[in-house]
């Protein structure tokens, strides 16, 4: 880069130092996290394999029927059978395990953060730019420190996915909590609720539809990350797409891509906000 009137501010160097510092001092800690993520994903993959494709397909179709009715159930049934037929079952289950792990962790971390940001204005103000950063920084960029900290394979893939996919859950949870009508908060206070009673009996139940919309978005964003995650060695359908791109194989690309789309639509429909008609409105 050409000389400017300012000396270059070494942001990149600082980031490098920071990651090195963390790697040197907290390697063990991140090692444990990586191992934890790995074993969680492994047990999911084992569980799916144990269920056998038939049971898995019927189970998901049943869930789809319970949540949304016959249409989504049929789509799930046919879609999953197609994935099985194309020969991508094993990879699909790995992708599924990756997505489930990322979403579960997103919820476990994101829900409390979201609730806190919904209640505490200062925390909300601090958190918002961080969430903006997480969502807009190109996802490839944080793959680099992820490799340093978590090695290669599933764990860095899951972590990168969480970083990208968690913000909607946090944002929508906060939004849902903030949107609880102030007279309901007053009513709950006027009857002598403690902070926890107010949270669990009023704020969270009323915010649930909004929170679910956030979780739904997190699921979709997780799926959009599977190809990126494959760059750090996460196995699954993403790796197939990556392979197809690098070896110019249209057939594999289309088939694996189609499988991802099927899983995405299926999870979206199942997790979509099916607002209970009875309790809607006020």
């Amino acid at each position, binding site marked *: 880069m050409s000389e400017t009137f300012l000396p270059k501010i070494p942001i990149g160097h600082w980031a490098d130092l920071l990651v090195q510092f963390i790697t040197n001092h907290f390697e063990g800690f991140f090692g444990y996290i990586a191992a934890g993520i790995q074993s969680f994903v492994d047990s999911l993959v084992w569980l799916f394999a144990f269920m056998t494709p038939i049971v898995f397909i019927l189970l998901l179709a049943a869930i789809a029927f319970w949540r949304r009715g016959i249409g989504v159930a049929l789509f799930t049934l046919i879609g999953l059978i197609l994935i099985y037929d194309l020969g991508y079952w094993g990879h699909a289950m790995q992708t599924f395990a990756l997505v489930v792990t990322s979403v579960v962790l997103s919820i476990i971390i994101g829900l409390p953060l979201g609730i806190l940001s919904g209640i505490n204005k200062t925390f909300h103000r601090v958190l918002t730019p961080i969430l903006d950063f997480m969502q807009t920084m190109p996802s490839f960029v944080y793959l680099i420190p992820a490799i340093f900290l978590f090695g290669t394979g599933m764990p860095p893939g899951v972590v990168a996915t969480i970083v990208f996919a968690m913000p909607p859950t946090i944002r929508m949870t906060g939004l849902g909590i903030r949107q609880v009508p102030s007279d*309901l908060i007053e*009513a709950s206070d*006027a*009857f*002598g609720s403690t902070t926890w009673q107010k949270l669990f009996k009023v704020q969270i139940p*009323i915010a649930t539809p909004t929170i679910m919309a956030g979780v739904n978005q997190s699921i979709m964003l997780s799926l959009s990350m599977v190809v990126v995650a494959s760059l750090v060695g996460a196995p699954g359908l993403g790796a197939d797409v990556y392979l197809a791109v690098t070896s110019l194989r249209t057939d594999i690309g289309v088939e694996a891509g189609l499988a991802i789309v099927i899983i995405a639509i299926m999870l979206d429909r199942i997790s979509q906000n099916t607002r209970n008609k009875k309790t809607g409105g006020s």
Partner: protein
Amino acid sequence: MKKIEVKKATKIFGKNPRRGLELLKKGLNKKEIKKKTDLNVGVSEASFHVEANEIFVIMGLSGSGKSTLVRLLNRLINPTSGTILIDGEDITRMNAEHLREVRRKKISMVFQGFALFPHRTILENTFFGLEIQGVDKKEQIERAHYSLSRVGLKGYEDSYPNQLSGGMQQRVGLARALASDTDILLMDEAFSALDPLIRREMQDQLLDLQSDMKKTIVFITHDLDEALRIGDRIALMRDGQIVQIGTPEEILMNPANDYVEHFVEDVDLSKVITAGHIMTRAEAVGNDRGARVALKLMNDNDISSIFVVDRSKKLLGVADADDAAAAIKAETPLSEIIKNVKSVQVNTHLSDLFDDISKSPLPLAVVDEQDRLLGLVRRGAIINALAGNTPLTKETEVQNL
């Protein structure tokens, strides 16, 4: 007994509200302080007390500070200064736990927008306060059922709030407040969101409930008619200050200043003045006195008919001069010539008298709850009262037999 006592309660909104207190002490008003600083005076040195078992109405236009004032009473809003005693205990100095206890056991509240929880059924809404208190589940349900039956909502337990009309929703709001069985009930514009007919119905129901519950009710409203109808005493607010406190009659008859006067000049008098206010002395004769006495009384008083009462002054009817003269000739007792007469209760509003008076050729008899004759109302008196020659201050004459 003073259930609630408020001494110089002030609430100033904005950063550093203490600055505002100084300015208030210097005698500046809400507008001047707003101009000088960015502070907003919500309530300015309000002092009043509420007796046990009375309905105390705080009334004012929007922005007068009445909703802020009622929230100071259960500290949904923290006062900037002043003391607020609930049963002698200063709520402004309580710690969080003590405050919760007071909110659970002593004060419940009904809100303008109902504030029902949309995710809970009517029954679950009703026992919310009890659930918060940790009352045994069975008792919660029992008390909620009882409370709902009191407001006439039996059968709606499993509905959700949005399935009910506005009036019914506010009944749930009332039932929820009653379920906690607190002595004090705060009602913040509780009926303002309802249409006039339903509002009237709710006011009646509240008065009904109050007649056997004997709660201490602080009722906020911007509607003077409502205030006059249900309030035992009324506090009028303007710009955060209480400008007058008094019974409905005192406020109407002796407005403290131009503001109050302006406020009350549009009042529909027919809904304030009662038969008792405009009745005049009624001539009556005991039915054991005979037709001769009756006729003499009529002649002496230059009237053509007279009310007949029994020994306990209970109204029996009316006898006219022609019949009395005939009865004297035929030697029949007075009781044989008594004709029915239209009577009204002493607390009937003028608006409810119009129909009766237009149909009756005779003046209306005014009676108390035991049907004892108190006086009579003539057409002229009604017209006179509506013309603004309000007889409210005049001592009402009661018939003395």
